[in-house]
């Protein structure tokens, strides 16, 4: 594992949290009920907090003086290394909770490993905190998927469609590229085959309870963690980054 790969691995983790946190924050004030508005905003806050810690760590490991803000606001879409799943639009509430369920199941397993690895102690500390938060996120999203999937005929049909629409973004979660392989060999990142097994167990149990059919693993989209994204990310970043890019030294 080179220093560059080390930094890239942390950036990928940070970008997943940042992009999904930004997506969820758009629900603030638009939740279907007050409790849900609060829940989605809370989850967004946890994720953005995780991103801040991971960006600060990535900046420190890189050693070029880039701050959390530099990494969040002054990189282009091609420099973001998040998975395609987290940048998908919020859609309706069902789309959002299915996306959240699929991501949380993955992130929970991944951060559980990260909290126990010994290669980067600071990363382990950040992960130990994140994994407790992700446990809540997972339970919350899985409960909603069950409620909607095993709800009315209309809610069932809608989340089944959400699942179908998002499924092609799940293959990439388990693709191993050079960065993953190097970091896995060094013991810093988990074996994605093991993560996939654990993810399958979680997701299958949730879908079974929700009476939803698991889509076939057909053609899968890829490229997110190498910086090749869907068009959705660029629009999201344009909105997220406009202020610091327009007024680079703006402070509150």
């Amino acid at each position, binding site marked *: 594992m080179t220093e560059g790969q080390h930094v890239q691995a942390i950036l990928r983790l940070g970008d997943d949290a940042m992009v999904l*946190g930004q997506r969820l924050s758009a629900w603030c004030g638009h939740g279907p009920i007050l*409790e849900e508005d*609060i*829940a989605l905003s*809370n*989850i967004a*806050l*946890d*994720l*953005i*907090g*995780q991103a*801040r*810690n991971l960006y600060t760590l990535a900046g420190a490991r890189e050693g070029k003086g880039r701050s959390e803000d530099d990494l969040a606001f002054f990189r282009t879409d091609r420099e973001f290394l998040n998975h395609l799943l987290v940048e998908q639009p919020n859609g309706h509430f069902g789309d959002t909770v299915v996306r959240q369920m699929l991501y949380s199941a993955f992130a929970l397993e991944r951060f559980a490993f990260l909290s126990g690895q010994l290669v980067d*102690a*600071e990363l*382990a*500390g*950040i992960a*130990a*905190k*994140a994994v*407790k*938060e992700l*446990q*809540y996120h997972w*339970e*919350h999203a899985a409960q909603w998927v069950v409620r909607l999937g095993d709800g009315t005929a209309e809610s069932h049909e809608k989340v089944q469609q959400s699942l179908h629409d998002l499924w092609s973004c799940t293959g990439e979660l388990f693709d191993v590229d050079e960065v993953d392989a190097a970091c896995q060999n060094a013991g810093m990142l988990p074996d994605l085959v093991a993560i996939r097994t654990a993810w399958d167990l979680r997701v299958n149990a949730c879908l079974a309870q929700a009476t939803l059919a698991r889509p076939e693993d057909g053609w899968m989209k890829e490229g997110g963690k190498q910086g090749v994204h869907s068009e959705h990310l660029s629009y999201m970043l344009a909105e997220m980054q406009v202020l610091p890019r327009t007024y680079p030294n703006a402070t509150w």
Partner: protein
Amino acid sequence: MTNDQRISRAWDQVRTVHDPELPYLTVEEMGMVRGIDVVDGQIVVTITPTYSGCPATDVIREEVNLAIHACEPQARVEVSLSPAWTTDWILPSAYDKMRANGIAPPEGRSADRAFLTGQGKTIPCPRCTSTNTTMVSAFGSTACKAQFKCLDCLEPYEHFKCI
């Protein structure tokens, strides 16, 4: 003044800082102050945030900074993320203060996974102490709290999540 005296004086200052979200508790009672040391002649206060995205962290850091500078102009505050903060670090004195302010404190130890989600465990009502209560939402007004309801006295209240 010896280093021990300086550290003791620094603690007195830090103990005056309260949590902006739970103003009846000090940051020391919250278990956020991990240590005060002398490093190269300078006082260093180490704090650990409660939740990754807790917006109060920046304010707390600034207030600890202000308090400590009253006696140690060269002191600095460092944020440590490892080991991660846990509700196990909250001092016993905080529990009664939480209850007196209508918040049900954490129940049990964080290491027990069953305690994580608030399901399958009883969170007594801080108003009437009834154990006939139910969780309304795992998320509350701040990252650290969940919403509960007492089924006897009907009091809605918050529970400090055990993490």
